[in-house]
């Protein structure tokens, strides 16, 4: 044979491979079947346990055996995925109704994993056997060959309860995901029964039976009014909260106790929640929480949050709902495989599919049972008739040479070669017309059956068989009779397995956090030239005033309810809430402002910091490096966006100065080449903050503005301006290599070149 090369087009092979992969993942890996609500791995595990006879009333068996057997017979994939599926099927905090009874460490609600499969043991739950694995011998579902065609496996389990709703499902396929919450078995069965009675029920009416999801972890669903929409479209967001109680502690303090968590917090998210609460305290979002401890045990969840004396528990509760995942959303997307295709289903559609499946299964079941009874009837009739002519039959038996002769005689009345005692017997024998099955039964019959009482018993059994046949025929032919059978069964399941609802369903207001006007404490904001910011108490500042003033570039008196604006050379204003700045001791290093607001030290440079509230009453002077200047009303800076443009800038331009000025002040613009221009502030026009401004100083080619000095900086400036390190005495600057006293400069006009002081 030669090497064969098949030419293929890239896009074709990509599409082909991808669609095979995607559909396989969708149909036979990640999504459940709408009929039994199981993914293939779950179905195969359960079926395998059934085949191994690991019933609820038998001893537990090692999980490793189940996993190995399932893998070898039906599921040629990784063992961890099979064991993972088995573990989840047994977890009562994950499943609405666990389908597997686990023995040993099957993991905990806090996300601890199960023990390795060589340690744990498992068996089926009673409900699994009765509601999922009944009647498999009656051909109720189709079987398909397994991967190497050595075994048969059911395509779907004959589930009698709508498992897709009861246990929900979660799965990530390709291009689509499914997420169905668990529901209450009793409620779901009621809805099924109601819908069998009246197939025209709407989604809205069905919600009278099924109130909403019922999570095994309890909790409270708070958007009841949106459920109708979610269930009729098959997708939406359910808001679920944990249950919180207030308890009194010793010494008049109170604590919040979380007794039920939202379903979404299952597993490792509990630990995350504890961290989130701790972070609330650390970032000073609240100061009322003194301790948090997780006291969950076999009695259930118990997370205790201790409060400071006099704290408002309602407020803290709302804070937790709002700022942590104690209130969370469960994204619903009721996607399942229906008729071999992935489909997003409404509640009604799921129930319809389920009911259709029930009728299909029940029809097949009763058809098989009817066939069996009909066969029985045939045999019984044969035996009864045989009893009447037993003497003749014995004569035939004795006169025959082979079994075939006897059978031919019994079935077709062929008497050739049989010795009869009399002509009459032979004539009678010729009239015999038993069926094949009857003839076989007669030949197999034991002699004791001829005792009088046994014949009575046979008659009795025959009567029963006839009654059964009538019954089964009725069930198969009448919709209402079959419905009654199904409903009776469902009621039985409900009686035995339903349990009370655990999740409360209600409508609740979204948690309101009246931003309790955080106490307004006057503090001093300190930021050093490296951008490390912190606030300290005023008294602390007073004590260290001298070093604070020299070590920090920005020293601003504010209060904790106020905000600061960080102005950068790129012309941006970044808002910074004073309350977000860590309040610390004087020696604390502080936090880089990069972490506190949108400021990015790798992209821009701080040119000033202003207290926004105080600046509102001021007029701000803005100067750019290309010489553009303007005045802006400070009230324009009062915005709520975290980052806005503080000044319009032309391409390539940058902001040099941005500080408050008075009407009667004067400024001096200084260019890089040493030109100085003294201007009265009153000559500078007012502009909107997004405007570029007007030209303040004519610059020669390649020259840029280096600085803008305030001539008469006074101690009681409305707000502090940046402190620039300078060795020069107040009122003088260094320009062109020598000291210049600003007040000696001639007052110029706007848009002129200014003067260059000569040596």
């Amino acid at each position, binding site marked *: *044979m*030669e*090497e*064969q*090369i*098949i*030419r*293929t*087009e*890239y*896009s074709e*092979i*990509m*599409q*082909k*491979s*991808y*669609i*095979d*992969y*995607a*559909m*396989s*993942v*969708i*149909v*036979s890996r990640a999504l459940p079947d709408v009929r039994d609500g199981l993914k*293939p791995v779950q179905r195969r595990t359960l079926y395998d346990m059934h085949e191994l006879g690991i019933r609820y009333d038998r001893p537990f068996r090692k999980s490793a055996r189940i996993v190995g057997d399932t893998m070898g017979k039906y599921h*040629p994939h990784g063992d961890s995925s099979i064991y993972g599926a088995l573990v989840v099927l047994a977890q009562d905090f994950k499943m609405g109704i666990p389908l597997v009874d686990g023995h040993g460490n099957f993991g905990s609600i806090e996300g601890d994993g199960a023990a390795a499969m060589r340690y744990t043991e498992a068996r089926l739950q009673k409900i699994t056997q009765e509601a999922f694995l009944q009647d498999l011998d009656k051909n109720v579902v189709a079987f*398909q060959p397994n*991967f*190497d*065609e050595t075994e048969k496996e059911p395509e779907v389990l004959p589930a009698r309860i709508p498992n897709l709703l009861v246990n929900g499902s979660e799965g990530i396929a*390709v*291009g*689509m995901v499914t997420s169905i919450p668990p529901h209450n078995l009793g409620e779901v069965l009621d809805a099924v029964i109601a819908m069998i009675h009246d197939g025209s029920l709407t989604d809205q009416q069905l919600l009278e039976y099924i109130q909403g999801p019922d999570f095994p972890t309890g909790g409270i669903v708070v958007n009841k009014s949106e459920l109708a929409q979610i269930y009729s479209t098959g997708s939406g967001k359910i808001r679920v909260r944990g249950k919180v109680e207030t308890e009194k502690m010793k010494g008049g303090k109170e604590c919040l106790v979380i007794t039920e968590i939202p379903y979404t917090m299952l597993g490792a998210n509990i630990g995350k929640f504890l961290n989130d609460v701790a972070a609330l305290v650390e970032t000073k979002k609240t100061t009322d929480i003194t301790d948090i401890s997780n006291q969950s045990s076999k009695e259930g969840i118990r997370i205790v949050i201790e409060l400071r004396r006099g704290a408002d528990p309602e407020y803290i509760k709302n804070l937790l709902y709002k700022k942590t995942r104690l209130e969370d959303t469960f994204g619903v997307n009721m996607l399942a495989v229906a008729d071999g*295709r*992935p489909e997003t289903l409404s509640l009604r559609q799921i129930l319809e599919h389920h009911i259709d499946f029930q009728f299909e299964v029940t029809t097949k079941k009763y058809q098989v049972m009817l066939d069996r009874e009909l066969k029985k009837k045939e045999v019984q009739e044969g035996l009864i008739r045989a009893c009447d002519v037993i003497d003749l039959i014995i004569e035939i038996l004795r006169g025959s040479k082979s079994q075939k002769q006897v059978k031919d005689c019994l079935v077709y009345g062929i008497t050739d070669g049989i010795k009869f005692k009399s002509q009459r017997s032979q004539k009678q024998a010729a009239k015999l017309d038993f069926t094949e099955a009857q003839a076989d039964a007669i030949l197999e019959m034991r002699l004791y059956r001829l005792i009088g009482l046994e014949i009575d018993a046979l008659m009795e059994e025959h009567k029963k068989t006839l009654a059964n046949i009538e019954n089964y025929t009725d069930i198969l032919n009448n919709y209402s009779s079959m419905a009654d059978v199904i409903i009776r069964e469902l009621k039985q399941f409900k009686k035995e397995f339903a349990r009370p609802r655990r999740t409360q369903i209600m409508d609740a207001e979204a948690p309101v956090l009246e931003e309790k006007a955080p106490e307004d404490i006057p503090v001093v904001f300190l930021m050093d030239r490296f951008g490390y910011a912190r606030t300290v108490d005023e008294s602390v500042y007073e004590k260290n005033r001298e070093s604070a003033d020299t070590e920090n570039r920005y020293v601003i008196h504010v209060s904790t309810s106020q905000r600061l604006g960080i102005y950068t050379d790129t012309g941006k204003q970044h808002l910074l809430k004073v309350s977000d700045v860590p309040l610390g001791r004087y020696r604390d290093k502080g936090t880089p402002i990069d972490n506190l607001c949108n400021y990015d030290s790798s992209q821009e440079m701080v040119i000033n910091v202003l207290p926004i509230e105080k600046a509102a009453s001021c007029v701000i002077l803005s100067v750019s490096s290309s010489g553009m200047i303007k005045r802006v009303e400070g009230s324009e800076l009062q915005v709520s966006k975290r980052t806005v443009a503080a000044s319009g800038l032309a391409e390539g331009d940058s902001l040099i100065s941005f500080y408050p000025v008075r009407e009667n002040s004067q400024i001096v613009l200084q260019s890089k080449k040493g030109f100085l221009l003294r201007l009265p502030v009153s000559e500078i026009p007012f502009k909107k903050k997004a405007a570029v401004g007007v030209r303040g100083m004519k610059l020669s080619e390649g020259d840029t503005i280096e600085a803008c000095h305030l001539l008469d900086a006074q101690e009681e400036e409305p707000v502090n301006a940046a402190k620039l390190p300078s060795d020069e005495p107040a009122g003088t600057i260094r320009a062109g290599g020598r000291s210049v006293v600003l007040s000696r400069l001639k007052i110029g006009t706007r848009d002129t070149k200014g003067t260059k002081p000569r040596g």
Partner: protein
Amino acid sequence: MEGDSAGGSAKTARDRSYQAILPIRGKILNVEKASIDKVLANAEIKTMINSFGCGFSEGYGNDFDIAKLRYDKIIIMADADVDGAHICTLLLTLFYRFMPELIYEGHVYIAMPPLYKAIPSRGKEEYLYDDAALERYRRKHKTPFTLQRYKGLGEMDAAQLWETTLNPETRTLKSVEIEDARLANDVTEMLMGSDVPPRKAFIYEHAQEALLDV
């Protein structure tokens, strides 16, 4: 090149004078969705670049030079199941995006390991490369036979692997070629990109054509 659990037997099976095996563990990064530095940080991809010896079209020196390619045929050898198919698409995306000349100049091939082995009670066993071949075999052979299904390359021993997949005298290869460059680009973007709706639409549209793997 290799799927996951068969690197060992492939190394034993090859003809080491002109065949090299580079095992790749599990599924590689989807380069269509990842940023370039993530792509370059990926150990699996780095090894691939280094062993091809022809550089990389972006980042990493920008030194792609097809003349330096160390091998004439780069053969993707993945399990004959749907996960293998997925690995195939991931690798092809990598080649297409970062070393497109490999494909344009016809260096990329896909190996075709057999899907089944039919073992009749008498007579010769036969390897079957797809489901159609299995159907043909069933029609031709009325006598009962045992069927072994190869889920992974790991199920074959070295000799079998050589005989069925590696031996240039007997193996079957698919060459990957691009005739319609625009289509290739669109398809890659749709299947591997981060925009979900077009992919979903594609899946729905072609759902019926898919070969399912149970």
